[in-house]
């Protein structure tokens, strides 16, 4: 009797002729998530089975695959021989010992001497004898014991299932570059795009020595948490110190933030094009801060041609926080390391800057040279 983890997938069955590709990517992602654990992954009639691992690690495996996008649900169960005796031994291990239950059997091996109904009835009866506190309820049972008789002389038994994260396998919907700041929003934005199958890699801007290593470390921590879902373990940092100093020295102070964001977008686009990303992803939410007005977004969009995806644009802060807690990034996001030094914060940032004014101010700067300079500071962080 061998412990196994049974994985069911979400939307892949919708994918018609592309199904093979989706399944292949999904299996790859499962493998990535299980890196470091000895196991075998097998496909079996519409699900995946993780087998041949050290038995004590079933929960750890379940936990890891639960975070893989495309996983609809998963169960820990037993792979056993298909004799009724063995099926009963397995059922005893997974079955509840009290409350209401039913047994449901699926029989892929049609030549099995008993029908699905007969198997369910027989095993159900034996379980009732073994656990006197159990009661049968075929309509709304508290627990369902599943038996799956397979064609190769084996069977699976498990009881109930846990929900996975759902979504589409990462790697099936293109590549995006997430601008990650260290705040609450951007990790959530990255999570949401990855959930739709996008490969999301990370770009972080810092202005050392005005910001400190704590801010960068925090982003690395966020990136690590995010990588449980996105399966991407790379982060690029770009230093925008020179840029901020120049803007501060030459331009209208109320445009500090607006101008900096335009530079960040330019740098990001240039980086994205060089590395094959198809879009930029940001954590902006309409009206949340002074730079996240429609005017602010327009002024940033004006300097790039790649699409800018803002999955949180219509979300309230509370909704974003709730998601961030669920993902597990919230506690890190609220650590008090500033991603921007107060030296550069204007007292009254422009809320609705006119594009003409922005462009006029920007003429005071050597835009291309500053973008070049910033890009030259790009540093890859692997974790």
């Amino acid at each position, binding site marked *: 009797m061998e412990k196994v983890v049974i994985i069911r997938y979400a939307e892949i069955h919708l994918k018609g002729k592309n199904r093979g590709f989706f399944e292949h990517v999904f299996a790859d992602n499962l493998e990535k998530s299980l890196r470091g654990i000895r196991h075998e992954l097998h496909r079996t009639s519409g699900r995946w089975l993780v087998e041949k691992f050290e038995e004590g690690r079933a929960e750890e495996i379940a936990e890891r695959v639960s975070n893989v996008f495309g996983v609809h649900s998963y169960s820990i169960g037993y792979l056993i021989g298909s004799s009724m005796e063995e099926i009963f031994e397995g059922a005893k291990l997974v079955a509840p010992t009290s409350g209401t239950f039913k047994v449901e059997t699926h029989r892929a091996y049609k030549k099995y001497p008993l029908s699905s109904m007969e198997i369910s009835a027989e095993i159900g009866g034996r379980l009732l004898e073994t656990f006197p506190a159990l009661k049968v309820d075929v309509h709304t049972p508290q627990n369902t014991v599943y038996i799956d008789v397979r064609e190769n002389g084996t069977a699976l038994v498990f009881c109930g299932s846990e929900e996975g994260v759902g979504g589409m396998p990462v790697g099936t919907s293109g590549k995006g570059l997430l601008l990650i700041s260290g705040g609450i929003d951007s990790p959530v934005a990255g999570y949401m795009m990855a959930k739709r199958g996008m490969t999301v890699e990370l770009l972080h801007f810092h202005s050392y*020595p005005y*910001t*400190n290593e704590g801010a960068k470390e925090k982003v690395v921590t966020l990136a690590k948490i995010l990588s449980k879902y996105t399966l991407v373990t790379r982060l690029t940092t770009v230093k925008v110190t020179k840029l901020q*100093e120049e803007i*501060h020295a030459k331009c209208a102070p109320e445009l500090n933030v607006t101008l900096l964001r335009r530079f960040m977008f330019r740098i990001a686009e240039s980086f994205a094009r060089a590395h094959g990303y198809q879009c930029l992803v940001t954590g902006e939410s309409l009206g949340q801060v002074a730079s996240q007005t429609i005017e602010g977004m327009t002024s940033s969009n004006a300097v790039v041609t790649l699409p800018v995806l803002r999955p949180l644009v219509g979300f309230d802060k509370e909704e974003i926080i709730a998601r961030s807690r669920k993902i597990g990034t919230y506690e890190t996001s609220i650590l*008090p390391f*500033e991603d921007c*030094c*107060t*030296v550069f914060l204007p007292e009254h940032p422009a809320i609705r800057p006119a594009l003409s004014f922005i462009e006029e101010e920007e003429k005071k700067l050597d835009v291309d040279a500053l973008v070049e300079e910033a890009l030259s500071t790009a540093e890859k962080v692997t974790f």
Partner: protein
Amino acid sequence: MIYLDNAATTRPNEEALARAQRYASENFFNPSASYGGGFAVSAEMGRARESILSRIADPAKFELVFTSGGTESDNQAIFSAARRGNAVTTSAEHAAVERAFNELKNRGVEPRFAPVDRHGAVDADALLSLVDEKTSLVSVIHVNNETGAINDIAAIAKRVKAKNPRCVFMSDGVQSFGKIPVRLTQDIDLFSLSAHKIGALKGTGGLVKRKGLTLVPLVHGGGQEGNLRSGTENVLGILDFCYATERKFATLFEDAQRLKGYREALWEKLDHSLYTRISPPDGSPYILTVSAEGTRGEVLSRMLWEEGVVVGTGSACSSKHRFSRVLTACGYGENILDGVLRVSFSPETTMREIEESALHMNAAAQRFKEKL
């Protein structure tokens, strides 16, 4: 690297550490064990206890409890001694005392904070006026960790006891132990120590306690440290603390004298059009706190770090907790508070390092002002 942040922590003395490590790996027995090995370790710790204690107090009248550090010692002292009425302290205490005093509010004890002067030294008359018959604890930091200002704790304790003989007097001695001469008088009931400020490892500290004073433990368990601090003793840390103390005290007076000269030399070499002095001339020889007005100390400290000069700071670059609570209490304005650097020395500091640091500090403040 020129390391001038010794008030934050010090480089562990290698010989002291090697000696402690050798002993702790060879004699790894639990000091509470009832066989010979355990007794031997316990006895060695006893020697360490006596050695550390005798440098600052009469072991016939005081005892030493080992803790995890200065913060634990302060908390142990405060929550044990301040159990009713009010508790009086200064507005320039280390966070370990200040936060604990604020917590007293939740436990029904009224905290009272006495004002300090521009250097961070307490106004003793004002402090005395806050003490009344309901005062259960008075706490006065010995050497201020942000400015180096020295409070005359013996004199203050004497006045406090004259006014209310029943209240407990404690002092945070983390920045004075092993750095300036200390002798505990009978009016001082409790005195906190930290090992890593004088060349030993982080994670060990002590609370010196007047014999006869009863304390209530914070940590309950196996009854170690006279039932005051349960938990298997940190033998390595305690012995290292002892050996580092021995070394530090061997040259305490000469070091203090020399560093006082260095402190003044550094101040002389700093560009006075850029830097304002915060530390008093009669403060700890180990600390010189200055401010480059209109800059950000945290940014300066990182600019200096990049050039191999390590100094501390009095402000953070964040919008929250931007200004030092202690220096705010000293009465400085935002411009000064923003640009604070704390330079703190050790006996290993050399005159060349002082000279070089002054050049870098002047250049960094200059550069900051040019850019912003």
